[in-house]
């Protein structure tokens, strides 16, 4: 409901972090990691523009709740261990 100008702050302020937006739903292509080929170089972790790759024992674990499927990790991976597959195909 519209609030009176007297009831609102000077600028809209939100105490809800933007992590409530599960951007993984935007994804068309999904990264799939073949850990047997992973060299633990961490390049995918460094390049992920959304910061959704965590390293567990040096290997990437991608948070699919937020990964938008941009494919940067797959493109950058020197060992070619991340492939992009169409959502629903695999």
């Amino acid at each position, binding site marked *: 409901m519209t609030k009176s100008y007297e009831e*609102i702050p000077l600028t*809209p*302020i*939100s105490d809800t972090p933007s992590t409530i937006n599960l951007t993984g739903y935007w994804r068309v292509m999904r990264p799939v990691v073949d850990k047997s080929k992973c060299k633990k170089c961490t390049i995918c972790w460094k390049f992920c523009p959304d910061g959704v790759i965590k390293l567990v024992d040096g290997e990437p674990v991608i948070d699919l709740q937020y990964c938008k499927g941009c494919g940067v990790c797959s493109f950058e991976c020197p060992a070619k261990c991340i492939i992009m597959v169409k959502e629903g195909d695999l």
Partner: protein
Amino acid sequence: MREVMTGNYASAYGAKLARAEVIAAYPITPQTSIVEKLADFVTTGELKAQFIPVESEHSAMAACIAAETAGARTYTATSSHGLTLMHEVLIWASGARLPIVMTNVSRAMAPPWSVWVDHMDSIAQRDTGWLQFFCQSNQEVLDTIIMAYKVCESSGIMLPAMVIMDAFIQSHTSEPVDLPDQELVDSFLPPYSPDLKIEVGKPMGFGSLVKPDQYMEFRYKAMLGMKAARDRVLRVEREFKSIFGREHGGLLERYECDDADVVLVAAGSVAATAKDVVDSMRAKGHRVGLARIRSFRPFPHDEIRALAGKVEGMAVLDRSYTFGAAGAMFTEARASAYSVQKRPVMKNYIAGLGGRDITPRILERIFEDIQVVSRRGAEDEVEWVDVAGLQRRWR
């Protein structure tokens, strides 16, 4: 303590005396020595501030926005293409209600390339929601920076301010400037403490999305802030005068206007020349006056209206041109005068673009022209002054 210094150094001293805590700036002619001086102050420890060298003016303003959101008093300075590159983030700063203070050394826009004064860069930012103060002297630059923080950081205002001086005519010209005592400035300007700021461990989003059902109310509040700034500017200047013994004329400085038949409305350094011309013309019996627009935003509507009711002719000098219309100061002044019953004849003079000198002779001719026009009416409402190839001679 009086020292001889350029407008740029006066600007740097203003930011230092105001105890700016974060300075983010990118150098551009003719603003560079402001940033150099501030970098010196920070390096030598004379000013306890975080100095952030950035890669562009857009980033400079973005850094100021972030610092101000975290509750720091911030300062930056720019000019011309730097200012216009900031345009998007200038609107963010005002919408986020962040009282950042910035010096703009007003310089012409390219092409043709020019590093000299005109006001197009500043005028092009008039709708960004920033307060805009045009200064006439180096002393006024220093004083206005200190006053601007006090005006803008008040909870009823919370908007950013641009302190404007003319390229080279002020930025690189030395004048005696009184440096007020730090203790006095501290007593006048307390530390910045906003009601709400971003804090570590307390995640918050500032300036988040609102739907059409709530957007206008936020804009309405910003309008109220700008409106309240009119009174606030006057009150702060009265307090400033009581402490420092100086004032600069409120929103509209009136010089010899009380019994004037015709007045010239102008902003910036040209006003100083115009005051000399008023004196010499008055010595010859002409009742002329000068009204200097000190605050372009908020615009001195009431002051212009009161003046328009008393004079027969009003010449408005613009050091920029709004293509497809007229000079911006003229259109605003004329709009203010519209509600006056007995309106004066008004005429716009476009002069001094790209650093062209506006000499005393030219100003005298403008006064003579408005004297004639005030009796006969104006054939052309907008006249370009001192353009080679036009028939009328101005020099």
